[in-house]
């Protein structure tokens, strides 16, 4: 890596046109001189999509906003519904920010994909990064508690109450993805690699 905080990107995409750049490669990509994370090979790594973009990058928190804008353009190209795009932008941002904060070695892989279904889009956002055991434990607890909550909005209010007293981050990110973006969040841990996934089916017209 060059200067501290410098970003190294590889982009793999399929089935989309982004701005002035048409990205045709499906699979592959270089490592930009860095070791990439293990390939998507866990239980959760079964992809069926019509379009996706995958980014391997050495992120810092400041870069997350750039990635959000980049993938928002992807969503705009393949979905085109402003309400859904907004939900996905929030979810992408929060998941990436968590991945950046918890990354052990500064490498994160993010993949966003869309499968067209009759009158709907199945959208999946994945992040994968290596993390210290303690950080993995934090993510496990946050996501297990979120999964147990029957009412996402009420649980989000509980998290908001707790966040006002927290000094170590907001603790709101995953709850926001669930409540505001309407996307359940699951995870898988293989060795020291944590794979987080938000997935939801959105009806064309903005409903979930």
């Amino acid at each position, binding site marked *: 890596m060059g200067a501290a905080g410098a970003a190294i990107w590889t982009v793999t995409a399929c089935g989309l046109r982004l701005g002035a750049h048409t990205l045709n490669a499906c699979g592959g990509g270089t490592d930009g001189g860095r070791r990439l994370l293990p390939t998507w090979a866990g239980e959760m790594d079964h992809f069926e999509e019509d379009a996706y973009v995958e980014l391997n990058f050495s992120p810092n*928190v*400041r870069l*997350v*906003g750039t990635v*959000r804008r980049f993938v928002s353009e992807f969503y705009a190209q393949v979905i085109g519904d*402003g*309400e859904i795009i*907004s*939900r996905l*932008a*929030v979810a992408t*941002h*929060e998941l990436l*920010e968590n991945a950046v904060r918890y990354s052990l070695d500064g490498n994160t892989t993010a993949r966003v994909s869309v499968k067209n279904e009759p009158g709907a889009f199945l959208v999946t956002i994945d992040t994968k990064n290596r993390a210290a055991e303690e950080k993995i434990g934090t993510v496990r607890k946050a996501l297990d508690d979120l999964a147990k909550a029957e009412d996402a*909005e009420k649980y*989000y*209010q509980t998290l*908001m*109450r707790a*966040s*006002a007293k*927290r000094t170590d*981050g*907001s*603790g*709101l*990110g995953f709850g*926001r993805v669930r*409540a*505001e973006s309407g996307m359940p969040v699951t995870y898988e841990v293989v060795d020291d690699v944590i794979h987080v996934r938000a997935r939801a089916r959105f009806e064309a017209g903005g409903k979930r």
Partner: protein
Amino acid sequence: MSIEGVPNVATEGLRSEASLDSADTALVRFLGTAESEAMPVLSDLLKKLHAGLLSSKVREVTVDLRDLEFMNSSCFKAFVTWVGFVEEVPAEQQYTIRFLSDPKKHWQERSLGALTCFATHLIRVEN
């Protein structure tokens, strides 16, 4: 007229302008994006704003978010904390918070909806 002790903020991503617009009302406008690097500045600003509004005996503050493109959860937490400060003061000193939102920025409706549920008696949202 400026609010005593409340600076205008100008970070790389986020700008804010705060003023008293009558004897007992104030206006704060946010522009840009509120992401992680802006969080410490925003958090500090909202603390100072709360103190300034109390000392100015403001009854209502309008928070104009119409030019705020995005807010992450860390910055959202700063707003949650601010609302918590208002809840903690005696009722006769409390001020209400009126958010102005842009309906085209869909995240605002959802985030401000959640914030309103947090303190329905203190917050209202208008387009």
